[in-house]
């Protein structure tokens, strides 16, 4: 018989009271775990979204907007003085004094075409640059492609010769080496499915025949719905030669001042609207930090309430055990032995509370995440979070056990045994 055995046997005997104590801890710990996990996933989600626009600065044509009111009914964003960007703007950017800060320049043009009574978006860009900015772009797996895994011979507009495109592969490296120029196009996952097209198929757009050289994996981004092609081919197809809708820039902030570069761009291209994604994301970061602070505050409050529940319930349990503690004292247990028994009980319940709290918190996270952020994000089961949950639970349990343990030492064994 050891003090630990006594403590464990008492836990087993007072299972309902111990369950109540456990509940106090589980609620506190699971709240902390779920708040922490959800906030972490929201951060990941935000980071993913920002990095999806691997470009951290986007240039668009500046347009005037005006809202009209007709008897209280608003017609917003009526555009006027619509300006256009051109490929010449790229040359202007290339000559900026701080050009060295710009890692990637990716001009883009967008247009809408109708195929089989469906509106489809055509996106023209320098695809090599675009891929450099979007590392998550991957081709669909061979096994995902229902037929024609071999690409049919396609015509290269570069030299007018037929070349055989390489067999599709899954790796990104091979994606970047695909011959995406001229009449070769890539399809987003959704548009490919909607048009029932596979790699190697041909697609007629405005009378021109294009060859599908690859289909992208689904990314839950706008590219899923787009036909991607070289910018020159897109400008030609859309009948808008030299036009650019968007210029995405990948800036390297370590090479100079972001503000100076943006000021240079504004001076060189006064009719261009500059959107700084990094600053926008920093703003989101601040919002998330505030949310984190709020979450932590709520968690601490719940944890304190949980601690109070544990302390009160354990104190009540100690009072119930007055006679038992009196017996222990009478047969030679020191006060420190009684304290140890109470603390061991608190420790075991806390460890169990930490484990169950972690599992419950993660379960809440799994349920809540799809409602709050991107479905594609998976909840990570961090072992260190489990250890942290247990450690926190043990600290809370130990703190909450101190009062009842102290109470136990103050019990008069004489009164406890009703000697008098």
């Amino acid at each position, binding site marked *: *018989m050891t*003090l630990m055995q006594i403590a464990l046997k008492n836990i087993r005997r007072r299972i309902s009271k111990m369950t109540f104590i456990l509940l106090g801890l589980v609620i506190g710990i699971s709240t902390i775990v779920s708040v922490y996990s959800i906030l972490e996933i929201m951060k990941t989600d935000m980071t993913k979204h920002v990095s999806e626009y691997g470009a951290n600065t986007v240039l668009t044509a500046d347009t005037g907007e005006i809202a009209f009111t007709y008897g209280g009914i608003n017609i917003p964003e009526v555009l006027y003085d619509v300006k256009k960007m051109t490929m010449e703007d790229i040359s202007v950017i290339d000559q900026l004094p701080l050009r060295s800060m710009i890692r990637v320049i990716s001009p883009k043009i967008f247009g809408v075409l109708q195929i089989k009574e469906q509106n489809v978006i055509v996106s023209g860009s320098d695809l090599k640059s675009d891929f450099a900015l979007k590392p998550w772009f991957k081709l669909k797996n061979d096994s995902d492609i229902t037929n024609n895994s071999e690409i049919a011979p396609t015509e290269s507009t570069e030299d007018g010769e037929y070349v055989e495109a390489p067999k599709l592969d899954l790796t990104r490296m091979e994606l970047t080496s695909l011959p995406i120029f001229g009449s070769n196009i890539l399809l987003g996952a959704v548009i490919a499915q909607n048009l029932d097209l596979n790699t190697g198929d041909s697609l007629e757009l405005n009378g021109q025949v294009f060859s599908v050289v690859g289909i992208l994996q689904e990314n839950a981004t706008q590219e899923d719905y787009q036909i991607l092609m070289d910018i020159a081919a897109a400008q030609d197809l859309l009948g808008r030669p030299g036009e650019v809708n968007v210029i995405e820039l990948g800036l390297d902030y370590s090479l100079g001042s972001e503000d100076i570069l943006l000021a240079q761009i504004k001076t060189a291209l006064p009719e261009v609207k500059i959107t700084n994604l990094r600053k926008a994301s920093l703003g989101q970061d601040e919002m998330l930090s505030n949310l984190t602070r709020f979450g932590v505050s709520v968690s601490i409050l719940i944890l304190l309430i949980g601690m109070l529940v544990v302390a009160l319930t354990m104190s009540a349990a100690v009072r119930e055990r007055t006679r038992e503690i009196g*017996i222990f004292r009478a*047969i*030679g*247990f020191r006060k420190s032995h009684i304290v140890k028994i109470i603390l061991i009980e608190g420790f075991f319940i806390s460890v169990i509370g930490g484990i169950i709290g972690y599992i419950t918190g993660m379960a809440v996270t799994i349920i809540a995440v799809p409602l709050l952020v991107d479905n594609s994000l998976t909840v990570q089961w961090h072992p260190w979070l489990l250890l942290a949950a247990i450690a926190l639970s043990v600290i809370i349990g130990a703190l909450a056990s101190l009062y009842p343990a102290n109470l136990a030492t103050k019990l008069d064994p004489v009164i406890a*045994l009703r*000697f008098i």
Partner: protein
Amino acid sequence: MPKPLIIIDNIKKTYKSNGEDVNVLKGISLNICKGESVAIMGQSGSGKSTLLSILGGLNPPTTGRIIIDDIDLYNLSQEKRSDFRREYLGFVFQQFQLIPYLTALENVMLPLTTTNYSAKIKLEKAEKVLEQVGLIEARHRLPNQLAGGEQERVAIARAIVNEPPLILADEPTGSLDTKTGNSIMDLFQELNESGLTILMVTHNPRNTSYMKQTVTMKDGLLRLENEDFLPNEPDIKAMYGGIV
């Protein structure tokens, strides 16, 4: 005259009740030699249980000393007094006072919990005393699975497992029928014959026949059986067997 094992020296105990002093013990002196068995009789409220709790190191007297085996009990720190109880005293409480969630064997092993004996020795000692009280077969039963007399035997086994020189018993047959009570008193008698000193509080006159000596408490003072008053001044004490 043999050297006393227990010296109760002019013990007084006063409680506050509703702001007034209540003198429960008014000056008790008694010497008890090793191997004695003493029954302390008295009506409820006479102070006998208070005396027992003071003797057990659980309840410091207002004045006076308790010396057991040359150790002044209330000169010890609280923690040392706990150790003293474990090594020198075996308690048998009213209504058995077994721990309900521990088996008979585990209850008996309780006083050994805080000792340095190995688990094997603790088990051997507990089984030995359970054998001695005739309950080895019931060692794995919980208290609520035992009859009253069996529970009392477990309580006695728990009191003697540490091999203390002194047993303090408080109304050990109070909750038992006559037959079971007699068998328990037989057991106490056997323990006394084996050399244990026993001090028993009881208000059952039948129990006194199993004890070598009987004293009576009345109004906080000690009286010998059939004597009107036992003076507590040391210089006029008379010797009655082992009781001085």
